[in-house]
């Protein structure tokens, strides 16, 4: 069996300046904080981040915002972090806002090898801009394209040594779909267990999606 467990330092070697990075969590719930801290510590810059939101200042992705490490952001909501809006207004940060449900489907499509999905969400709004539209049965849809990333940083509540992940309660959110959509997937585990300790029925992300495991989260 391949050893997937790395130290925080080893794991961070997979992230480089300018990479496209998916970061799990919803308003910092289920965001892998140890990676946020380490990215700040290592000062890895010009990141293109795909995430639901940017948390709040000092929490979750808010840490990367405060340290001005993000160059481009794709998210559904930035309202609870005024620093994000300020950097956007100052032209330091390029923000692409995407409806939350479309964002989830675009990430899923990236992981599932779909060329895109058709959604009526956003039809008739600014979300249409630059997107291809299609009419089926007299209803208009936007073609939303898949998203993928160089690295996904996710949170796991219980992770076995094969990389199988169980997410507790509402920490699942974007973590399980992001695990499918990046070249390198690194999970911050609250608890690491032996292979076989997780019930095969309760595994939410199969281990094949997880490249590396770092302990010490949460």
């Amino acid at each position: 069996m391949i050893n997937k467990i790395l130290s925080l330092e080893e794991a961070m070697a997979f992230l480089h300046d300018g990479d496209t990075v998916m970061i799990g969590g919803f308003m910092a719930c289920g965001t892998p904080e140890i990676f946020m801290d380490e990215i700040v510590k290592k000062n890895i810059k010009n990141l293109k981040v795909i995430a639901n939101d940017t948390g709040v200042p000092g929490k979750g992705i808010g840490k990367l915002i405060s340290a001005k490490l993000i160059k481009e952001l794709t998210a559904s909501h930035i309202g609870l972090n005024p620093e994000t809006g300020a950097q956007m207004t100052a032209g330091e940060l390029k923000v692409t806002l995407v409806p939350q449900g479309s964002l989830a489907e675009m990430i899923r499509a990236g992981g599932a090898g779909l060329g895109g999905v058709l959604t009526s969400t956003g039809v008739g709004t600014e979300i249409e801009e630059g997107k291809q539209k299609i009419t089926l049965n007299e209803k208009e849809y936007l073609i939303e394209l898949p998203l993928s990333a160089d690295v996904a940083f996710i949170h796991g509540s219980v992770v076995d040594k094969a990389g199988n992940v169980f997410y507790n309660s509402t920490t699942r959110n974007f973590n399980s779909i992001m695990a499918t959509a990046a070249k390198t997937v690194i999970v911050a585990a609250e608890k690491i267990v032996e292979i076989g300790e997780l019930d095969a029925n309760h595994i939410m992300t199969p281990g094949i999606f997880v490249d590396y495991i770092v302990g010490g989260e949460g």
Partner: protein
Amino acid sequence: MASAKEMIAYRAAQELSNGDVVNLGIGLPTLVSNYIPPDVHIILQSENGILGMGELCMLGEEDKDCVNSGNQFVKVLPGASYFDSATSFGIIRGGHVDITILGALQVDETGTLASHIVPGKMVPGMGGAMDLVEGAKKVIIATTHTAKGAPKLLNKVTLPITAVNKVDMIITELAVIEVTKEGFLLKEIAHDTTAEEVQNLTEAKLLVSSELKTMLPYQE
């Protein structure tokens, strides 16, 4: 004396029926859950991944892993379930939410809504609002009738649009309005106002229902 927000939330709660799957927006709509009649059991969805959401946690009751979409610690009821964001918006976009109650910056007489952005001022992003308004079977807007005296119920939305022709009903402290093909239909007014007064605070023309009623007054 109840505040306008309390009055709106109270009236909106009366729209809910037993068994309804309901998603409440952040802010005023969240208050609705305080006023649900005791014999009405609804299933609250939180788009970050809960069906069967319960009350907010009191201090000391928090489970760090269990929050609502407003990032508040919540309890869940027996029979609740958790899921990921793709599943959550499958529930929403797929029409499995019976009612969503949301706030608004502007609504127009075609049911078009602006709720997520004020260019140059407020740029929070749409979060889940666009999908909720698009996908929920019934969209109720719960909002103060005006913004510091300026009408919010318009002929035509001027702010960036959140969703086109999707609002079914508007509940304010002054009125209950149904969005029909003919435009705004005034169905109820508060006991201390008149249809004329409501019209004066509304940009779009109000059709007055032949069965105009008085809004159910707020009760503790």
